């Protein structure tokens, strides 16, 4: 079993936390994991991507090949489209619906959404609303982890355990808010 994921978003959206949640859950389940991150200049409000590879055997490389991603999981709809060439024909595209408009030539939102829907079975998540309802706007990324978890080869309970570990130092309230966002994202 091998499951390749491209994580996308805009610097500051918590792409690395999404990666950490899934990666830790996968490791708790005994899977091998490779997670490639972006640090430094590229983080500052620019397009950010991370490769996350899960497998039950050794994974040599850090990077997902073109046409090889089982899933693109994006915190932002335009960023979801940026890496489409990585997606398998039957791969899953999951994106948050809320755009981050921080460039002057940001395309028309309707065009972006039709581009997302043209991929077939795209899952569009209103992560912002889920986060608000969970009581913590920062939990939008855990809503996205929840939406992804329905398709990942990782048990839901493992990812929940990972989320509890990630926020352990922040207290019970923050943990519960993130778990609630995760569950609501999973739907």
């Amino acid at each position, binding site marked *: 079993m091998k499951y390749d994921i491209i994580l996308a978003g805009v610097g500051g959206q918590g792409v690395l936390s999404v990666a950490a949640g899934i990666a830790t859950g996968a490791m708790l389940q005994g899977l091998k994991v490779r997670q490639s991150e972006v640090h430094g*200049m590229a983080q500052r409000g620019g397009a950010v991507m991370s490769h996350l590879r899960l497998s039950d055997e050794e994974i040599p490389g850090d990077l997902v090949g073109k046409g090889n991603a089982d899933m693109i999981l994006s915190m932002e709809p335009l960023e979801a489209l940026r890496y489409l060439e990585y997606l398998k*024909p039957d791969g899953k595209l999951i994106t948050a619906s809320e755009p981050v408009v921080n460039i002057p030539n940001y395309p028309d939102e309707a065009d972006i959404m039709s581009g997302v829907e043209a991929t077939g079975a795209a899952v569009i998540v209103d992560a912002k609303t889920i986060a608000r309802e969970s009581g913590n706007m920062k939990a939008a990324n855990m809503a996205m982890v929840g939406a992804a978890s329905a398709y990942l080869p990782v048990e839901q309970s493992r990812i929940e355990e990972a989320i509890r570990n990630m926020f352990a130092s922040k207290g019970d309230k923050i943990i519960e808010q993130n778990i609630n966002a995760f569950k609501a994202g999973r739907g």
Partner: protein
Amino acid sequence: MGEMVLLGDEALALGAIDAGISSAYGYPGTPSSEIMEYLLDYSEKNEGLFATWSSNEKTAYEEALGASFVGKRVLVTMKHVGLNVAADPFMNSALLDIKGGLVLAVADDPGMHSSQGEQDSRYFSAFARIMCFEPRNQQECYEMTREAFDISEMFHIPVMIRMVTRLAHSRAVVVPSTPRERNPLAKTDNPKGWMLLPALARRNWSSLLARQADFEKYTTETRYNPLTINRDFRKFGVITSGLGKNYYDEAKKELGSQPSHLHISAYPVPVVKVRELAAAVDKIVVIEEGCTFIEDYLCGYLPQPVEITGKKDGAVPLTGELNPDNIRGALGLAPREGLGTDMEIPGRPPQLCQGCPHADTYAALNEARESFDNSIVTSDIGCYSLGALPPYNAIETIICMGASVGTAKGAAEAGFEPVVAVIGDSTFLHSGISPLIDAVSCRTPMTLVILDNGTVAMTGGQKTILPSSRLQTLLEGIGVEPEHIRTITPLKKHHEENVGIFKTEMNYKGLSVIIALRECLETARKQKKAGGQK
């Protein structure tokens, strides 16, 4: 100790700790910074390790040499362009009789994710005629770092570990082994091995050249340079280095016959093994991360009995980093395609954070420039390099650490006016002071703007080597006229006042310095967060 999930940088740092280092020095630079971050964190919680950032890579390297001189193991870290700064002590240290193991961890950035160049540090290791390890996963980062310390003490040379961005910043499981004891404090018993007077240096140089055969014997025998020969398949063989092997290992599953293969991760290149491979194949495909280091040696200047293909003939792209797709053509594998979109996706470049003090400084500087027919603004390496992009379009040169000051001086002395140099506080302390002393000595008509946000922001908010409060006295101390050292607060409410100060100093026919003082928001936020957790 059980399994740990670590970044490549962190695995290297742990390898150094378990190799028994007593000291570590470095200067921040993506993608190397997390090595020292890990060591700093460790040294706060454990006894016996002195770890610190230095002013720049040259001072870091020299400090590391001192630790080796007294017999201690020491790690020195920097990014690839940092080694240019440290090149003087680095090159000369190859001639020293290294006592305590000295390992240089240098992180290259193929693809220039966060750098101004793509230089390949393996050339530096060959230039200095020392040994170099090139790990390709986190476990190797750990193991090779430990091995590098042993090698350094066995051959009495500094040893390089060459990292690359993709490895530095990816996470995987590492299984550490039993830590080694630290070395006792014991000064070298061979002082002649540390004094590079010409007569002694000549002797040391000859000794270094004579030991090359020993280095190559090691790299021929080490398990880190494995060679497999397939006598039934002559069509082509493969040489990989670094991450090239990872992508090759995945791609080779699609090849019918498995080619003969030499993987090189310890340098100097094991020539005997290269020849053995060459004798078994008609063609060699070279897949190496970075420049054409191995390939250049293979090709040489004269016709070859074996065809060589790789980056030089374009079978693998000459620029950028390797990936699972761009090595396929060289192996005769068809390209792969995924889904696409008809839509044109606009780029989303990095940008200054909302509310960044640099944005307010640039706004004031831009407005002040409007009162001059023409002006020059040179700049430097840091977050503020993003001032080159819209909407600021505020700066005109970005070259290397500290270059803004000297470049401005040269332009002013060639007759241009007004000339402004913009540099961050950490970059100024790294290598901006020396050219400013030059400007003081020549009374150069220019204005230096020090963007003082109190941190090394771009690389993650490390502490600067001196606090902001020392800048004023430092500037006065080297002879900048006190009435032309101005401090502004880059905030919108001070915009008009700041524009006025810029105009006044740009009109001054001598040297002036404007300190734009306001804390980095990102660093302040992190410190608040860290403080809140305690």
